[in-house]
């Protein structure tokens, strides 16, 4: 009997242990409808407001002459950053065969796909003439970093959708086999999965190619996003470390967002059996490391600017450090460094609520970081012009809310139709990983002493 047969056996059998994981799909209650209706309303409002913005012009935002970019671009960078949660983390964990990844990867990948779509739409919100957005396709110039973005985001989106989908095939097949409706959907998406060894081999090979492929793409995406800024001559933007800085920030905010989602989902769908303290422990260690990395990058970025003492750089520098953006700058430092490090360094505070607070703080802090990058550089022109200011209008807040609502709705809908935790991976883990890990661990350990040497050692002792 093959492993696959065993899995199938469990799916069909009465001793199916992971009923919890399918509850959201098999008996979605009224809650789903209420929540999705509410979120849908928020999204609808955002669309109406967007329609109004198209009709009246971008004047309805708080943007103005020197500060030509605001919330839309900030949120664009922010959402794309969050999207690094998923694919990158899950790929790295898979690649490193971290066994504790099993309940995490799916959620991470979903975040990526949903948030990436939202993030990628943000530049369209920002266009003065969205009706002409197609000009990018008919008359694009690949010399423009914006086009690099279009290419790399679409590549990332394609890759991460595939990367979400392929490992999901066995779970879809499971749902198909359990007769969950709409059945045609699951049949369509299951691609004839039967769990045969050959199929498993194919799947495994595809996943391992993908996870290798996805990592450079993910890194390239955020590097390229940073290039939007770094490729200009503007003070505060024109920096060589922007690529890695943005990538670190993205992973940082991604992990934080992932943990927030995990904590919420754990609560909502009662996944305590699956998402255990140890998962959060490991992830928060990762978050702690990223926080330190982030402060390192931030420090070197600002120190270079400060030490160079270039007048226009200094204008931006002081605008952030002591000027109008000081509250945002320092709360960013607090939210990204002090709070997470303070909470996560100590076991006593590294509880689930503590982690939630730290993660939320990081998400807010990383949003502030994007704001601190986009606005101050624009507000401080090189020429002796008045310092600009930017106060987002209600329109931009609504669009922001719409973005979040879309994210949540995307997640809710996903959870309604697909398991949030990979069932087959859990089962596989249960079946195989103890043996496999033991074996692997033994592989890590020093080879056993040849018997003679062992003996002499014992003798000496």
């Amino acid at each position, binding site marked *: 009997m093959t492993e696959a047969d065993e899995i199938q056996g469990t799916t069909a059998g009465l001793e199916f242990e992971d009923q919890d994981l399918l509850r959201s799909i098999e008996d979605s209650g009224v809650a789903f409808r209420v929540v999705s209706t509410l979120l849908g309303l928020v999204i609808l409002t955002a669309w109406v407001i967007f329609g109004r913005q198209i009709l009246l012009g971008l*004047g309805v*935002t708080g943007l103005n002459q020197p500060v030509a970019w605001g919330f839309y671009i900030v949120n664009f960078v922010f959402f794309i950053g969050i999207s690094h949660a998923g694919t990158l983390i899950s790929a790295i964990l898979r690649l490193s065969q971290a066994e504790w990844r099993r309940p995490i990867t799916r959620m991470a990948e979903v975040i990526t796909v949903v948030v990436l779509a939202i993030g990628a739409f943000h530049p369209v919100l920002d266009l003065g003439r969205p009706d002409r957005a197609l000009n990018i396709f008919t008359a694009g110039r690949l010399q423009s970093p914006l086009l690099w973005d279009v290419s790399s985001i679409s590549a990332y989106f394609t890759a991460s959708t595939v990367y979400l989908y392929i490992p999901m095939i066995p779970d879809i097949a499971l749902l198909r086999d359990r007769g969950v409706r709409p059945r045609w959907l699951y049949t369509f998406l299951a691609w004839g999965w039967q769990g045969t060894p050959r199929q498993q081999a194919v799947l495994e090979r595809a996943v391992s190619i993908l996870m290798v492929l996805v990592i450079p793409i993910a890194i390239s995406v955020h590097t390229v996003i940073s290039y939007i800024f770094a490729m200009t001559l503007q003070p505060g933007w024109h920096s060589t470390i922007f690529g890695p800085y943005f990538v670190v920030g993205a992973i940082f905010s991604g992990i934080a967002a992932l943990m927030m989602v995990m904590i919420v989902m754990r609560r909502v769908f009662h996944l305590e059996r699956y998402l255990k303290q140890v998962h959060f422990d490991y992830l928060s260690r990762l978050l702690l490391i990223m926080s330190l990395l982030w402060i390192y990058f931030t420090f070197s970025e600002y120190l270079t600017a400060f030490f160079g003492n270039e007048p226009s750089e200094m204008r931006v520098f002081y605008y952030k450090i002591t000027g109008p953006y000081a509250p945002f700058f320092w709360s960013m430092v607090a939210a990204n460094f002090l709070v997470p490090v303070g909470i996560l360094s100590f076991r006593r505070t590294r509880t689930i609520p503590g982690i939630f607070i730290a993660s939320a703080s990081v998400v807010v802090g990383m949003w502030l970081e994007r704001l601190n990058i986009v606005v101050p550089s624009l507000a401080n022109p090189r020429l002796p012009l008045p310092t600009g*200011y930017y*106060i*987002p209008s*209600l329109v931009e807040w609504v669009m922001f809310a719409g973005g979040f609502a879309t994210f949540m709705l995307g997640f809710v809908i996903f959870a309604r139709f697909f398991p949030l935790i990979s069932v087959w991976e859990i089962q596989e883990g249960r079946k195989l990983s103890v043996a496999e890990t033991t074996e692997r661990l033994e592989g890590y350990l020093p080879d056993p002493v040849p018997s003679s040497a062992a003996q002499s050692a014992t003798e000496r002792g």
Partner: protein
Amino acid sequence: MIVPRREFLKMLGVASGTLGIGGCGRDWLVPDRLVELAQRGPGLESQAPTICGLCESGCGLTVRLVDGLPVGLKGNPHHPLNRGGLCPVGQAGLEVLYAPHRLQAPQRRGAGGELEPVSWDDALAEVGDLLRQLRSENQGSRVALLTDEPGQLFRDLADSFARAIGSPNISSTKSEGLLPFTLTQGIAQVPGFDVGKSDLVMSFGLDLYEDGPTPLHAISAMVGSRATEDRAAHIYAGTRLSAGSAKAEIYVPISPGTHGALALGVAHVLVREGNYNRDFVAEHTFGFEDWIDDRGHERLGFRRLLLERYYPDRVARICGCDAATVVRIARRLGEASAPLAVAGGEASQGSNATWTGVAVHSLNALLGVFDRPGGVSLPPPIPLTPLAVSETSSLEQTESIFTPDDSAGAFGVDPVEALAERVIDGSGPIALLIIVSSNPVYSSPAGGRLRQAMEQIQLVVTLTPFMDETAAHADLILPSHVFLESWQGATTPAAVAFSTLGLGKPVIEPLFDTRHPGDVLLELGRVVGGPASEALPWVSYPDYLKERLEGLVISGEGSVVTGSFEESWVHFLEERGWRFLEHRSLENCWAVRERESAWWNPVPARGDWARLFRTPSGRFEFFSQTLERHLREVGGMEAQAGMSEEEALERGIAVMGSQVDSDEVCLPHFEPPVTTGEGELQLLPFRPITARGRLAAVSPMVMEMFGYPFLDGWQTWAEVATETAHELDLADGDVVAVESDRGSIEAVVRVHPAAVPGTVHVPMGLGHDQPLGVAENIGSNPIEIIDPIRDSLSGALSLTSSRVNLRLISRRPHGGPAPLDGGH
């Protein structure tokens, strides 16, 4: 019922066809945009020269017409005044023409105070009836006329009109600042300052490039037409470093109102170091050395006064500058080959403006710059056809309400104040007030009083193209053309060294049912009939202009400007003997004039000292005998026969409120400026170039760039020195209330590192409460809060004497919340 679109259109087409209203159907058939395109015509271009009528300068314009519609304005490169340049307000000419708020037909204020449309005939008949009635009762003096329409030609016509109806009460609303020249030179006009040929212009309080009668002429003559190397150096003494005065080589920040002291300090150094023009002083001045009058009394000379009283240390103390600067300026002036001293702007708006003017002008005399290139001269008179003085002897001669009354001691009055006060106190029972192209309620510190007075006047008529503050209180509002629609005759502006005459012809048919003020006056003359119509025989204003300009042809003086400025010179020389006059006939001349739009005469008559100095002594009078006589008259010498001359003089000085003794009073001297109010700062309103003329506020473009030196628009700012801002804890962009004893206005703080501490400069030109263009309720008007003091000599109201406090209303708004969704 659902009608297919095609059917619907057909039905509509048939309907419109049968009813004969083609227009409706057409709108449906062809999109508006295409109709417009089709009707826009072939796009044939032409150019037409005319004169800018937006301020008193009268710069030359070239209008670009496409299919007969003006679509662009530029400076006329042939015009001797601006030589191709055009100021921001002039650029906005088309926005004035096409402004949405123009008055489109005459309006009459009804019993309830509401405005009703009225026909021109009825409106003029009403005025005519009143005029006829007053005239028949020999009460022509109950008519008053205020006009700011620029140019001597219109003024002459208005004078004729006033004479014809027997009214002596005609005045401009502005006091013209002539008195310093009357006292020293005995002339009743501002002489020409040849800034174009001077090599050092020392300006007291006047930003030559921004304020003054013709800033564009100053720029083109001092900067534009000269090579960089031989450009006139420029020294500026004042309290505010504006965009133009920032070009000065030396900037002397001084306390407000102390320009005269500085001038005298400079004079002191010139005299002490012997750097003055001895020949000129000896031959053409009076009162320099000590002298003995006809009674044998020894009198103080200007020289001794200077040396004793105006040594640099004292002057520096008064002015708040340092003594070395005074010496440095004096030496620069002494070394210059053609220096020139001019006063204006804030220096001519203080309570001591006349004294300042005299002190500054006496520098010109010390330097002996009269009657020479780059100096002070009188522009040659324009040989206009003289007007026949009509026979008005049948009318009772009465004194004008604009003559100063004896007790005031002044040479003149502020026209608006005098009119308002005399109407209110009943000493000038005006029944008909005609206000032409002027907005005194807004622009004069006595505007508030005038508004009260207007309520007591039986009929107030204003002639204006826009609803302004004055029109809002008038009984009859007669819309006039804007300059592009009307004939204009612009004569030499003040302080220009050559004479010019700009003839502006309309470039477009009047857009609305408007009339030229000149035509209105001629029409009124006809309505009144009798001698009035005889005195005003012209059918229309252009007819009048034509007749006046005949004199130019007959005299053969000057030249029509053609080609570039240089070509125009050659042409001018050619006409002086190198070839025959081109236009013999009047018609020909008129045609050429119409085509080229400007005439000029750049050659002053040299050596005509009698014309230059029309004083009792026939010289430049440091010691003003005119003033001495006036003071004695005021002091009551004639009234009380027994009084000695000295006593009369003393009393005259006392009446006038001067603080110096009788020796000094007729000499150039410094009178400390008087201020009112308890505020910490002195309010100095100024006129930025974006507020020139009455109609600048009509243009959205001008409003948008109103405060362009601060990259700002649409708001009134209060310029304060860095130190002052620091003391008051104010920052750039804060909104403050500028509070005087009279009231309070709102302004935005602008910190200027070069302003004089203790002053606050607020631009005039905003704060209209009438829909004058787009500017309704935009910014604020500093004149509203001025507590005016009279210049004791000229009677003019001072704009710079109020003390104010700044009270913070709100911090720079950029920290606060934005309007919810962008204000839409």
